[in-house]
């Protein structure tokens, strides 16, 4: 090992201890029963349990809905923020990004209080509102970033070739900003699948998400089943990240 690569040693140790080791432990636990024997039992239990599958499906559904709403709200917001004619000040951008500075748990608690104050029944609706509120900045930021850095000459070239402003948007700006959208999806979809605190506070535990079940199992010392569920979730999340690898980098900025 030469001198410079030895600088990486602390990071390697960190990764080993806090990323690799837990992963190995999760895999080991997932394939063991309570007394340490090798088994597929944890997985068969999950795939034959209609309740667990239902929760899993609901989690995916909520995550997809949340992600879609975030795109629908976040893309126009990012577009307006990046448009120098509509938005001349950096303050508006900070206002949009500022919620990211505050702990998500605190914001969720505050949102729950707000619903309580307004007398709104907690349920799936409030869960989605809370999630969108929590995750919207994570969608806006990467899209804003890529739109902001995008070379304006692409849009000018499209207009020059006869594209109306609407066509410029759909045929050039949207496709070129896809890497930003993909980053946004990763930053919103993945954590929503595994979230449990938001559903706990914003639905009064009426709606259980996949994250909640994992948490409950781990809390009641069913580590092996919890680890198996975690592994399943990890695989799902890992599959989403494949989305990004297929997208090539676009001149004018990637996130």
């Amino acid at each position, binding site marked *: 090992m030469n001198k410079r690569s030895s600088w990486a040693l602390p990071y390697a140790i960190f990764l080993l201890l806090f990323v690799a080791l837990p992963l190995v432990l999760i895999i080991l636990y997932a394939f063991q029963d309570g007394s340490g024997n090798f088994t597929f039992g944890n997985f068969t239990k999950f795939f034959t349990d209609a309740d667990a599958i239902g929760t899993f499906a609901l989690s995916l559904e909520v995550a997809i809905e949340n992600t879609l709403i975030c795109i629908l709200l976040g893309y126009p917001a990012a577009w307006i923020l990046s448009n120098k004619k509509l938005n001349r000040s950096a303050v508006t951008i900070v206002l949009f990004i500022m919620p990211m500075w505050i702990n998500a748990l605190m914001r969720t608690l505050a949102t729950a209080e707000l619903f309580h104050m307004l007398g709104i029944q907690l349920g799936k609706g409030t869960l989605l509102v809370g999630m969108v509120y929590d995750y919207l900045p994570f969608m806006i930021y990467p899209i804003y970033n890529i739109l902001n850095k995008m*070379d304006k*000459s692409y849009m000018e070239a499209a207009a*020059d*070739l006869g*594209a109306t*402003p609407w*066509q410029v948007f759909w*045929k050039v700006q949207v496709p070129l900003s896809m890497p930003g959208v993909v980053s946004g999806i990763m930053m919103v979809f993945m954590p929503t699948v595994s979230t449990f605190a938001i559903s706990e506070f914003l639905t009064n535990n009426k709606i259980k998400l996949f994250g909640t079940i994992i948490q409950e199992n781990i809390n009641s010392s069913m580590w092996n089943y919890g680890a198996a569920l975690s592994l399943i979730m990890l695989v799902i999340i890992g599959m989403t990240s494949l989305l990004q690898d297929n997208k090539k980098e676009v001149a004018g900025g990637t996130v």
Partner: protein
Amino acid sequence: MTNNDYIIEIRNISKSFGDKVILDDVSINVKRGEFVTILGPSGCGKTTMLRLLAGFGQADKGEILINGVDITGTPPHQRPVNTVFQRYALFPHLDVYENIAFGLKLQKVPADEIDKRVMKVLKMVSMTDYEDRDVESLSGGQQQRVAIARAIANQPKVLLLDEPLAALDLKMRKDMQIELKEMHRKLGITFIYVTHDQEEALTLSDTIIVMNEGKIQQIGTPTDIYNEPQNSFVADFIGESNILNGRMVKDRLVEFVGHEFECVDEGFGEDVQVDVVVRPEDIYIMNKLEGAQFTAKVKSCTFKGVHYEMYVETENGFELMVQDYNAFEPDSEVGLLIRPADIQVMHKERICNTIEAEIVDANHVKFFEETFECLPHSGFEEGEKVKVEITFSKVDLIDHPEEGMLSGLVHFLLYKGDHYHLTILTDEGYHLWVDTNDIWDKGDLVGINIAPQDIKIIKSDE
């Protein structure tokens, strides 16, 4: 009012960004099928002019007509022009074929017709078989060809080219110049080409428009521009030149470098100060002194490939650049001769600084937002609007801006054989012209002092 010969009529266009004037009352007429080059240094407004033609941005004043139709307010996608961008601006998410077909698809051209046209323009730019390539896998030169193909696929009436060759290396640039010229001939459409490269402009154009600081300096054919520059800026910007102070003695007789020369210019009047331009290749240099109009000593001699470039100093201290196929040794005495037709005489834009001013008191006058001491004057009242005249050589420039009454920077400089003629831009944005023997560089920060006895006050209506 509309003339059918003109495809583009630009009338009195002005444009400012903030308080910086980019285009100042520019009017241009372009004939159908012409290859017109807008030439000027960076920041002269040439790119802004092209962008206004394409529809990116609005002029503050004036109007633009294409084919007799006022398009001043028309958005870019409805204009019958297409642009080749300096940085190509090819869509990275589309391949070569889709890039070229972009505009045609928008016009709902049938697919087989699109096919035909894409293949035709690809052939025209020598890029056949590249249609499936990713644009980012292409070299700079290839990308530029695709950008040109994309612009001409739409069959525009006018093709706008914004320094299209600036990013290419020299050899490739030369090849592309020839191809562009050929393409212009084949297509028969009007080309408006923007560049800062004077050689490119001379090679390609039917007409050159020389711009500087938002104003048109001269419009003419390449030979006109080269042989008969209308002012010292054009003479200095296009090609190598000796620019000298001169005096028109009478019609067809001009005096410079301490000698009188026959020339072909008339109508300047008698005993009038002028600028004289002589191209270095138009000065005949020889070893024998008889038959020469004046003599000089060779200071340096450099081989430039085709010719030798020599600096010579005349017996009365003027330095001239001479180009010749033969080398003349440094320190040798040579005879020089200039033919009447090779002397270009130009009106001087100014013969001294004339500045609007205001009398402060008996021995102070205010101009350029600063109060200057002057000699006691008579006949002027306090607060009276006047003008002051300051001779170019009486403006004193010093190294330290903070020690001057004014400060500014060297904006433009011109060597005039025995001194430098500088344009100084003061911090407050005023121009001051200075003759000096000191050597300054463009962009140098300077302090400016003017002695009281050198400020001449005159009535404002003189």
